[in-house]
């Protein structure tokens, strides 16, 4: 990893931190879901609370990745500064890497409330090893959503990117079974869930923090989504020349 990628990450973070309300946005929804759904309904059962907390962590990662990259990149592309950055002596790699590093850091920060609520207000438990594994899994699970976000951000104008992110995050969350415990999802969701990236991501996390056997189809589909989203992201970046007018 080049130092230039770190430079890009550093200035991305600086820009975000100077407007702290942006951080609250991506942390609020998952934290609120924890308080309204998980704490009252599953808070007393250690197993259910652990699964539900892991689901909310995945939810949080998905939402913050989609919006940070999808909306963030589309917004950047509409700014003249983006056109200027393309004239600097840096290729795609440092900007891509820097953006992903900064996004990961922001995602981790937005996870803190979910994890704190899970630890303090529910019976959810995790071993030290499980926690470390869980954090590592979060990065793997974030990958397809990061790449989806980049694909959206680099291929759509800001207003379209915003709508697309809002439209897809909901079915991804419910369809992937993030709102139900592993074995109590409605039949229809149990059927479609393995084909959505949210399922593979959450199953990995469940396996890391609790006693859960991930489904092969879910994991294969997670890999497929990651590769496809990555290919679309690279394609969209290559064809992008800033905001286009016809």
């Amino acid at each position, binding site marked *: 990893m080049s*130092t*230039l990628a770190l*430079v890009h990450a550093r*200035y991305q973070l*600086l*820009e975000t931190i*100077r*407007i702290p309300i942006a951080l609250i946005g991506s942390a609020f929804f998952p934290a609120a879901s924890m308080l309204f759904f998980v704490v009252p309904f599953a808070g007393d059962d250690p197993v259910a609370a652990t699964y539900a907390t892991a689901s909310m962590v995945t939810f949080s990662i998905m939402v913050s990745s989609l919006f940070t990259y999808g909306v963030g990149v589309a917004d950047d592309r509409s*700014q*003249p*500064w*983006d*056109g*200027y950055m*393309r*004239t*600097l*002596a*840096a*290729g795609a790699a440092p900007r891509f890497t820097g953006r992903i590093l900064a996004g990961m850091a922001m995602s981790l920060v937005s996870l803190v409330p979910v994890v704190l609520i899970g630890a303090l207000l529910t019976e959810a438990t995790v071993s030290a090893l499980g926690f470390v594994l869980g954090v590592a899994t979060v990065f793997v699970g974030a990958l397809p959503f990061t790449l989806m976000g980049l694909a959206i951000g680099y291929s759509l104008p800001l207003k379209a990117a915003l709508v697309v992110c809002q439209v897809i995050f909901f079915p991804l969350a419910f369809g992937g079974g993030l709102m139900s415990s592993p074995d109590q999802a409605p039949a229809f969701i149990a059927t479609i869930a393995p084909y959505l990236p949210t399922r593979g991501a959450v199953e990995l996390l469940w396996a890391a923090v609790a006693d859960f056997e991930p489904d092969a189809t879910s994991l294969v589909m997670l890999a497929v989504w990651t590769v496809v989203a990555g290919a679309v992201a690279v394609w969209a970046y290559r064809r992008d*020349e*800033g905001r*286009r*007018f*016809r």
Partner: protein
Amino acid sequence: MILAEAIEVSRRYGDVTALDRVSLQVTEGELVGLLGPNGAGKTTLASLLTGVRRPDEGRVTLCGGDPRDPRTRQALGVTPQETGLPATLRVGEVVDFVGAHYPNPVPRPELLEQFGLADLAKRQTGGLSGGQKRRLAIALAFVGRPRIVVLDEPTTGLDVQSRRGLWDAIKAYHAGGGTVLLSSHYLEEIEALADRVVVLGRGRVLADDTVTAVRGMVGVRRVSFACDGEPPALPGVVAVEQRDGRTHLLTPDSDALVRALVASTVDFRDLEVAPTSLEEAFLAITDSSDAVALAA
């Protein structure tokens, strides 16, 4: 050595042709002005030479390489549009960020001092005045000690004093051996800085000549008067227009035209001589066959 070159370059946006087989060469040490009205294709040409966009046809090179290759751009300095600075970053941070892309950047205090920004290093760019933002934007072009800078309308919207300050900075860079391609729609700015002018209109190169020669072409004046009957045939007229009972003649030499008019038998009334805008001058030379001959 040729530092920037466009060879038969065309670029379209949908149905609009922004550049139509444009060729241009900038040699090391030159200060070339790119003159044209809004929509002439100046910004598009600059974006091709700086690697932001790709030509549909033709080829561009920068310092002998492809401007889309980041390594080629280590020798390039570009000015962002004033509105494009990241509002939450401080002046010093923006300079450091851009400087991090080059092997041997100008130290921050030195650069800020040169552009009169030393007192503003800790200010967020969103809080700067228009003139201060513009100074910072231009300073950024020079952070990486470039061999060539491409400045796209660097002083648009600036007051006279700030404009002269920036001209001095550009002149100093040029005097030190730097190469400059500067676009503008002010003839005055090009005259103050450039040795050579390339005139762009409707996506084509209309002229590529010395400042004096181009001034003769685009320094067009409008001589208008009322008269009955057909407009007279007079020397040095590049365009004739008749409306509201008045005849409008566009000419590069209004003195000679007025002398000829007085000496002729035309019974004119309400004579007026007025400067034309650059847009009008371009329309005139685009339409006249003289301009085509000059551009060839």
